[in-house]
């Protein structure tokens, strides 16, 4: 990968170049698109995006494209394998002296359905083979493109179209969110981080850091999703910010065999985050108080593992 020709110290250093143009048919306020826009600002247009079925597949609808990069849509389960084919083809031709090495980046772009569920195997294998690529998972915690059904990424107590709330089940999703970060980390990728559209400097710095490394560079981004999660598009960045401030979406990186949290939570009460989203509206019924307590416990448990505890106990 080509090292960047600029330094990212403040938000003023953000590259002016845009590689994701406006005018797509995506939802207003989609956090995923903000992340893609920032991500591409760092790695540049000399890239090919390899996509799996998901919301972002519709970024490109014939005959229009709003990306200045290349693009290949594969299928649901196999974008990392498509990335492998492109990388291998270019490397083979470079090694044989048939083409010069133009340092073309290969970026896999999928939602959480592909990353956590149907494409877990192909991602695992790409990391196993130390494929030199970027992976950006925009995680809106459900199958968003098909109308917000439960996925491996859906957290406990989220309502979805296939885990609705009813007389028998008044919680919605009963399982916890799958820990993809740890699953990916077990593969020892060159770089691994979580990102958020509400923390652009954190996001871009991580991508910049990763760009100096060869091998798998893996990113899981919180995709605030007004359509699926159920909030007004104008609140998208606020929801993304609250996910981090409450401690629900830890911003961290794993590089050189070490996990570092890049932004520490304020331990803002989780209710602040839950109450603005329709997918959690059923929790604010007095008989579901226990579910909210459980979410709080999960958050505290996570941070305790890293020796990070709230300053006061006011949150609980």
């Amino acid at each position: 990968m080509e090292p960047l020709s600029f330094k990212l110290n403040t938000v003023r250093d953000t590259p002016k170049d845009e590689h994701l143009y406006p005018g797509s048919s995506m939802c207003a306020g989609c956090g995923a698109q903000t992340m893609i826009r920032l991500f591409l600002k760092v790695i540049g247009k000399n890239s090919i995006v390899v996509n799996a079925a998901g919301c972002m597949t519709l970024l490109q609808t014939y005959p229009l494209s709003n990306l200045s990069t290349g693009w290949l849509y594969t299928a649901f389960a196999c974008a990392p394998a498509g990335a492998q084919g492109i990388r291998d083809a270019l490397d083979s031709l470079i090694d044989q002296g048939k083409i010069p090495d133009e340092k073309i980046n290969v970026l896999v772009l999928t939602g959480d359905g592909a990353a956590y569920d149907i494409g877990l195997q192909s991602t695992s294998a790409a990391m196993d083979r130390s494929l030199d690529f970027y992976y950006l998972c925009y995680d809106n915690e459900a199958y968003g493109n098909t109308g917000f059904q439960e996925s491996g990424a859906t957290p406990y107590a989220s309502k979805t179209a296939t885990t609705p709330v009813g007389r028998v089940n008044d919680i919605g999703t009963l399982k916890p969110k799958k820990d993809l970060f740890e699953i990916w980390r077990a593969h020892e990728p060159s770089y691994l981080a979580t990102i958020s559209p509400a923390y652009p400097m954190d996001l871009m710095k991580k991508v910049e850091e990763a760009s100096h490394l060869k091998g798998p560079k893996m990113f899981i981004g919180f995709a605030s999703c007004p359509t699926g999660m159920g909030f007004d598009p104008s609140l998208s960045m606020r929801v993304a910010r609250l996910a981090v401030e409450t401690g629900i979406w830890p911003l961290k990186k794993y590089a050189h065999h070490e996990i570092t949290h890049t932004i520490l939570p304020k331990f803002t009460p989780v209710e602040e985050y839950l109450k603005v989203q329709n997918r959690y509206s059923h929790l604010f019924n007095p008989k579901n108080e226990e579910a909210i307590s459980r979410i709080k416990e999960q958050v505290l448990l996570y941070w305790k593992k890293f020796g990070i505890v709230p300053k006061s106990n006011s949150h609980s």
Partner: protein
Amino acid sequence: MNDLITGNEAAAWGARLAKVDYVPIYPITPQTEIVEKISKWAADGLINARVTRMESEHSMLTAAGAAALAGARVFTATSSQGLLYAFEMLYNISGWRAPLVMVNVSRGLASPLTLLPDHNDVLAARDSGFLQFHAETCQEALDSVLLAYRIAEDSRVMLPAIVNLDGFYLSFTRERVDVPEQKDVDDFLGPYKVKPLSKENLPSMGITTLDPAVYSYFRYQVHEAQKQAIKAIDDATKRFEKFFGRKLKAIEAYMAEDADYLLIMTDSFSTIGKRAVKRMREENVKVGLLRLWALRPFPIDDLVQAVKGKRGIAVFDQDLSPGLGGIIYQEIAGALYGTDDAPKLASFIGGLGGKIPTDLDFEYMVKVLKENIPPNEPHLLMSKSDMELVKKQREIALRGGV
């Protein structure tokens, strides 16, 4: 070089001589020997191809198609369950117009699980847009790979191709194979024509359309390209004969010219069919055989020509579409329907799971044609001794009071 090699090795030689840039691999019986051979050649530095072990056939096909679009000449191989596991990508890759070559070593599909060949695997891919060429001999396995590249990469075609060879009967059978000189193959094939990805060439590929007319247009294009492939086959096989002296055709006619009756077959069992034809000829039965080498594109015009004036055609299907019958029979019936003096057709299912057709089977097929037995039902070939064996095994299986 002229050597005794297996069908698998012959197919691998085809890839080697085509100087492929990339081979994504995944093992499956009876194909594995192909990717082992290629891996060894790569390890020994005898080929420049990059060989990558994938984690499934689905990913293998994805990587193969993506690499072909990125500018690499690509070879890969699979069998049976593997082909079906990769299935959705076949349609993608034909839509991508990525002219790679994949060998399928035929093997019957589970369940019951088997290792021996029939063609339900490869015929499942008939609607995918892949070209399909079916080899009868080890020599043809090699030749078909070279021809497949020439035809797939023809600018009128630009479609992926499957070369089929039968598991075990061809894959593990050694025959004398003439391995062409590298220089001749270089001249025969020419360089791969897809422009490699570069800063100046980063297109959008495989993208969505929600407009039915646009979708139809692009799928029609795949059909048009298949039709152009008929001409490309003609040109490529003529060129092949000039370079290497061997003649291949979309349909091979064996003792067919003066025949009253024809058998239609594909793949390695055609050799058994030819032997039966020869023997029946000695008894003055005027029978011949057509062997389909190209199944996609389906050589309709050649077929109509070849059956003109015949009294009866027996189609031997080494496949079964339950609830309908023989797949190739249906295609032939469709092709001949409404043509002048179309001969009588009869359908025979045999060779499932590698069941070898016997002399009696072939005699029965001709008898059906001669006696004009109504053709509506496919004849499921099963001899008395076959049935004895089944009965014996069922008795053992049912022992123990189930």
